[in-house]
């Protein structure tokens, strides 16, 4: 009988796991524990070698094979639970066998109603069996804590038993410590349970933990040291989780370890440094946050580069989570930016701005701090950004302090202007605009200085900056309206910290979900509670996508479309106006932004474009959706065919989400438009937007940024292809040549950049003359399809102010070459050219820069 069992089991090894499990059946009837033991070894043991084969086959098939045989499982369960008469060797293997099968497929192993059995199992006296049982318990508890509350006191009992070294056989002590593995596993299991309700159990656990925390000393024996610290660290983790830190003497004990951990931050081994950082992060709470964060800040100076980003993020999160007061939080983040600006992601400083905006008490303090930092000689760019932003918003609160007049603030910010990159310049320009707004009574000198800066950037090659400059100038001319538009940013709606989200992203693939992660998902940042945030727009679903978009960014986008549109007096034929619900780009939404159908999130309303009057108008007519219509303006008959039911689309657009458009004035509606270019044209695409307010008709004509170079696609050609084409196209109108004089001196790379941004692919090496430039592109339209265009620029190295340009394309009707020619002539010279003024009436929202071709071209870039 014995041998038969072994033989069957052995055969099973050769065939498959399914058979192995099958072989459990005959074994079940066998009374020999050796046979049972051997067959138990198979499924888990095979996991390592045979799993691959099983996976290769269809999973379903495998399960089918398993299913009828799972009486074998019952047998294992029985072995584990009931038959304490079985030898320990068999029972512990049975427990692990069950665990392995449970991991493979939790549904197959039926553990319903196991809590009582589990509780029995935890009474086990044999520590070998207990080790296995505890592994099984951790796996089961990690999936479902609720059902196993009755096991909690048992776990504490086990810890007590081991902690006091009662009833532990000599063979299960490791360097004098009662099985550290069980202790560690038990504490792991306890970590899955939230706070313990029962006071007796809690006290018992607390005593055990205290014994561990106090009793752990560094000893000479390395192995013993390892074991006691293994227990200690788990205890610390559990301690921290159960938040039993309230008793002061325990706190002191932990603090003594805290010092040790902080020292470990300087350990020569990077993995220890990382661990120490993680541990500090984990054990931080309201009481020691200040110390730990300050320690982290100091450490930032010397930390490895590989760790700095993580370090900065963690310090920022801790500061946010446990900030005793918000001014401290602002201090920490500013220090963080100062010390490790390169490693501070944008999210971090956005968060500061968010807090400051939401807490009025904090605003003067933050502004003063920002002012202090600006005096430092070498300043990280992120610091310039955040300081400039804060001072722009709140510098007027400092007006009474010395050295904080608007003018002085302007001067100190302006010192940074030449050294910063474009993204920062954009923020600085907004700051200047805000300073200008607070300039009461007007200081003509300051005003002139700011205006001169705006004027300088009005022709900046960077679209973003140029747009800001142009718009701010326009706004300045509006006089009193400026104050409305540039008013202080509204409060941010409450969000989950993007930083926390970011920290959570690190997904770990382990057999059991980490208790720490489960807990951290349940916790919320308490810093948010501190903000005196009034609940905003209760009906609005608050986006969980993390941080709200910062004003700077939001306005960037809005302005981009605005500017483009403002520049678009050129060609372009609008054909289909197709509002869509899921916008890939927000075009109309942004356009309408100025008309106040804007607002969710409310903060995304760019200050510069906020129009209070219209807002109130809209608020006054909640049922205004009725008289709206959306039609397409035929500025070119036959060129525009609506392809969808406009009315239906409009309703969908307006009524989405809430069902009523103006129930809430802050609902933002986005409406992307798609353009098809029918043929080359110089006409402007205009969206005629009108609605009725009461009896008054409001009409706005919005120019759309459908410029010709949007329909270009860069293409690279070989020298052969190029010359073939070039020769086949000869003479006007296929090939046009012109010598341009009075060009603003541009180096060849600069011209190449210009071309690239116009969607013209520069092909180096085709022209052997290094002073010449060849570019190619393809123009798309409905009537002409793809048309190849070749451009050649010949420059004179001795006189950069003149160049000769030749443009060739296969379509004589293509006005594109005219346009490109004009761009190239006009842009560098920055003088008004003979270009025909826009045929369309001026759009009321974009009165700016129409006559500045330089700005125009830059806008097209």
């Amino acid at each position: 009988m014995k041998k038969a069992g072994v033989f069957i089991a052995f055969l099973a090894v050769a065939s498959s796991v399914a058979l192995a499990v099958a072989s459990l059946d005959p074994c079940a009837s066998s009374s020999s524990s050796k046979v049972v033991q051997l067959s138990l070894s198979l499924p888990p043991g095979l996991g390592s070698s045979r799993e691959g084969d099983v996976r290769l086959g269809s999973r379903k098939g495998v399960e089918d094979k398993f299913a009828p045989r799972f009486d074998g499982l019952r047998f294992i369960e029985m072995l584990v639970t009931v038959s304490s008469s079985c030898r320990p060797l068999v029972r512990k293997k049975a427990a692990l066998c069950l665990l392995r099968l449970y991991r493979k497929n939790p549904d197959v192993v039926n553990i319903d109603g196991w809590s009582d059995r589990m509780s029995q199992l935890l009474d086990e006296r044999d520590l070998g069996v207990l080790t296995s049982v505890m592994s099984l318990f951790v796996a089961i508890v990690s999936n479902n804590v609720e059902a196993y509350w009755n096991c909690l006191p048992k776990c504490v009992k086990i810890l007590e038993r081991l902690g006091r070294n009662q009833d532990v056989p000599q063979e299960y002590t490791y360097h004098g410590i009662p099985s550290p593995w069980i202790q560690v596993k038990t504490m792991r299991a306890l970590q899955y349970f939230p706070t313990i309700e029962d006071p007796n159990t809690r006290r018992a656990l607390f005593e055990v933990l205290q014994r561990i925390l106090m009793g752990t000393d560094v000893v000479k024996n390395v192995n013993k040291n390892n074991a006691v610290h293994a227990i200690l660290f788990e205890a610390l983790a559990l301690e921290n989780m159960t938040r039993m830190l309230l008793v002061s003497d325990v706190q002191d004990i932990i603090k003594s370890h805290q010092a040790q951990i902080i020292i470990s931050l300087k350990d020569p081994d990077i993995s220890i440094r990382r661990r120490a950082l993680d541990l500090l992060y984990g054990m931080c709470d309201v009481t020691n946050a200040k110390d730990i964060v300050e320690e982290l800040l100091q450490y930032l100076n010397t930390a490895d580069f590989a760790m700095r980003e993580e370090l900065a993020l963690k310090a920022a999160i801790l500061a946010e989570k446990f900030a005793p007061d918000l001014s401290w939080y602002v201090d920490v983040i500013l220090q963080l930016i100062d010390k490790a600006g390169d490693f501070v992601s944008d999210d971090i400083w956005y968060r500061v701005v968010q807090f400051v905006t939401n807490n009025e008490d904090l605003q003067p303090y933050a502004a003063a701090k920002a002012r202090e930092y600006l005096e430092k000689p070498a300043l990280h760019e992120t610091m310039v950004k955040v300081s400039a932003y804060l001072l722009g918003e709140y510098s007027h609160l400092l007006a009474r302090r010395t050295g904080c007049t608007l003018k002085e603030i302007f001067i100190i910010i302006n010192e940074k202007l030449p050294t910063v990159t474009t993204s920062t310049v954009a923020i600085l320009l907004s700051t200047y605009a805000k300073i200008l707004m607070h300039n009461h009574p007007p200081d003509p000198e300051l005003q002139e200085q700011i205006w001169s800066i705006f004027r300088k950037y009005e022709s900046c090659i960077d679209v973003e900056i140029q747009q800001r400059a142009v718009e701010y100038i326009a706004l300045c001319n509006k006089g009193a309206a400026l104050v409305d538009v540039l008013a202080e940013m509204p409060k941010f709606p409450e969000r989950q910290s993007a930083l926390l989200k970011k920290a959570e992203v690190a997904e770990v693939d382990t057999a059991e979900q980490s208790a720490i992660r489960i807990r951290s998902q349940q916790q919320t940042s308490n810093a948010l509670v501190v903000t005196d945030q009034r609940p905003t727009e209760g009906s609005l679903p608050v986006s969980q996508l993390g941080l709200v978009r910062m004003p700077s960014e939001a306005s960037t986008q809005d302005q981009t479309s605005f500017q483009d549109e403002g520049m678009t007096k050129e060609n372009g034929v609008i054909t289909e106006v197709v509002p869509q619900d899921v916008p890939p780009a927000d075009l109309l939404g942004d356009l309408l932004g100025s008309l106040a159908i804007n607002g969710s999130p409310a903060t995304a309303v760019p200050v510069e474009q906020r129009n209070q009057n219209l807002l109130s108008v809209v608020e006054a007519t909640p049922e205004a959706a009725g008289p709206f219509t959306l039609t397409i303006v035929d500025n070119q008959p036959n060129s525009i065919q609506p392809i969808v039911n406009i009315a239906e689309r409009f309703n969908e657009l307006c009524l989405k989400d809430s069902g009523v458009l103006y129930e809430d004035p802050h609902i933002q509606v986005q409406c992307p438009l798609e353009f098809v270019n029918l043929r080359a044209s110089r006409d402007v695409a205009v969206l005629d937007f009108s609605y009725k307010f009461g009896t008054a008709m409001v009409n706005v004509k919005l120019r759309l940024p459908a410029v010709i170079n949007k329909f270009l696609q860069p293409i690279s050609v070989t020298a052969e292809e190029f010359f073939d084409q070039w020769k086949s196209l000869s003479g006007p109108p296929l090939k046009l040549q012109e010598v341009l004089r009075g060009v603003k001196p541009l180096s060849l790379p600069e011209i190449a950049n210009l071309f690239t941004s116009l969607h013209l692919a520069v092909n180096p090496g085709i022209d052997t003359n290094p002073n010449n430039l060849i570019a190619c592109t393809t123009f798309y339209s409905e009537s002409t399809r793809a048309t190849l265009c070749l451009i050649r620029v010949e420059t004179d190295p001795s006189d950069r102010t003149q160049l000769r340009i030749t443009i060739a394309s296969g379509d004589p009707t293509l006005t594109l070459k005219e346009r490109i020619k004009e761009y190239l002539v006009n842009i560098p010279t920055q003088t008004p050219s003979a270009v025909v003024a826009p045929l369309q009436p001026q759009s009321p929202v974009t009165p700016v820069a129409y006559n500045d071709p330089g700005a125009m071209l830059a806008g097209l870039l």
Partner: protein
Amino acid sequence: MIRAVIVMNTQGKPRLLKFYEFQPPEKQQELTRSVFAVLSGRPDNVSNFVETDAIFGSGTRLVYKHLATLYFVFVFDSCENELAMLDLIQVLVETLDRCFKNVCELDIVFNFNKMHTILDEIIFGGQVLETSSERVLKAVEEISRLEKSSSSVSFVPKSVSGRFGR
């Protein structure tokens, strides 16, 4: 859970490879090579814990002990305590030592079957099965008794076990 147990010498030659999740042989070799590359670059005075996200996937760590000419390496995920794993290596080594009396690399080379049996009694399907070296030894002895008594099935060819067994 424990993902793998690797015993290799300081030249990078594997003496025992045990993966508790299926890995094809080529992958096993590759993993062994990467582990050796990590270990050989570490001086003696640094920590015995290494994060191996790049080799074994995210969240995995390895703990190793360098004893005489051998590296004992345990790879595991975040469900296990590193120091407990280090202790477990110690248990494994102590058990080997008891079994072979002053264990050296050659013992492991010639008695690989015994080595596997011992390991299987300590770690089972990636979980800690037994932590008492006395109990492990008892189980191992029982298995070898069983082997001897069952003449029809021998797990290791007689010629090999007879020549090198003690």
